[in-house]
């Protein structure tokens, strides 16, 4: 399930537009995930999950940084995300279904903020990109 050249170009083009605000959007995606899918909160008993929480913002920034790294290293996601795949496999063990929920919320968030850029083709490219990232994160589970 590799991304075609056109798909990579779309993802990179949108990421350039996101600029320094990837963290803001990732945070919004997390907030939407926690609200729409409360079961996901069980992975964060150690965080203050109330709206506007600084800890959720910090976590959003972490997620953002990982995604930005992935965009930069589309040719070698397993290599670039190796540390994160180990972390998820051996410590976090987030059920992969939850990655779909976060990805859904991230796409909704980006669609809200960049409606003019969010064509069906852009959505499909991003969906495929996120799919590759999440399978990399779950790749060492067993």
């Amino acid at each position, binding site marked *: 399930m590799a991304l075609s050249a056109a798909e990579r170009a779309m993802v990179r083009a949108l990421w350039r537009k996101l600029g320094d605000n990837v963290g803001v959007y990732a945070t*919004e995606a997390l*907030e*939407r995930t926690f*609200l*729409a899918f409360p079961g996901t909160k069980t992975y964060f008993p150690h965080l203050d999950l109330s709206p506007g929480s600084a800890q959720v913002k910090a976590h959003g920034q972490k997620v953002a940084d990982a995604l930005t790294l992935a965009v930069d290293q589309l040719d070698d996601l397993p290599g670039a995300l190796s540390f994160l795949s180990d972390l998820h496999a051996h410590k976090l063990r987030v059920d992969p279904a939850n990655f779909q929920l976060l990805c*859904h*919320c991230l*796409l*909704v*968030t980006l*669609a*809200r*903020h960049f*409606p003019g850029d*969010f064509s*069906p*083709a852009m*959505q*499909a490219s991003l*969906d*495929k990109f996120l799919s590759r990232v999440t399978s990399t994160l779950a790749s060492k589970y067993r």
Partner: protein
Amino acid sequence: MSLTKSERAIIMSIWDKIGMQAEAIGTETLDRLFSSFPQTKTYFPHFDLHPGSPQLRTHGSKVVAAVGDAVKNIDNIASALTKLSELHAYILRVDPVNFKLLSHCLLVTLAARFPSDFTAEVHAAWDKFMSILSSILTEKYR
């Protein structure tokens, strides 16, 4: 899984805006579905699926109209959708997985068209509502 009073109010609050763009929203939703998840096209061998095709527009309108029926009968969605539920169970037999994909694409479409209305609360309420619709449509499968 039923809707709380405040969820019902939230769902109905943006319905008017959606209703006014029903055909466009339905068409865009299907466009996004077929772009991101090409396997869903297998249910429509009898259609011209090029973006903007008259058949897509008609079908998109039908889908949004059905959602509208559910909104107008939000206190008893199951009875409003009895015919559709039978249609899906005995004739269409759409694999339930696809309802999630369609719902996701509808929510992305709503987010892109109504960015300031599509708050996290509205998103969560509509996700739950679409989930309820999907279970009703698949409840007679077996």
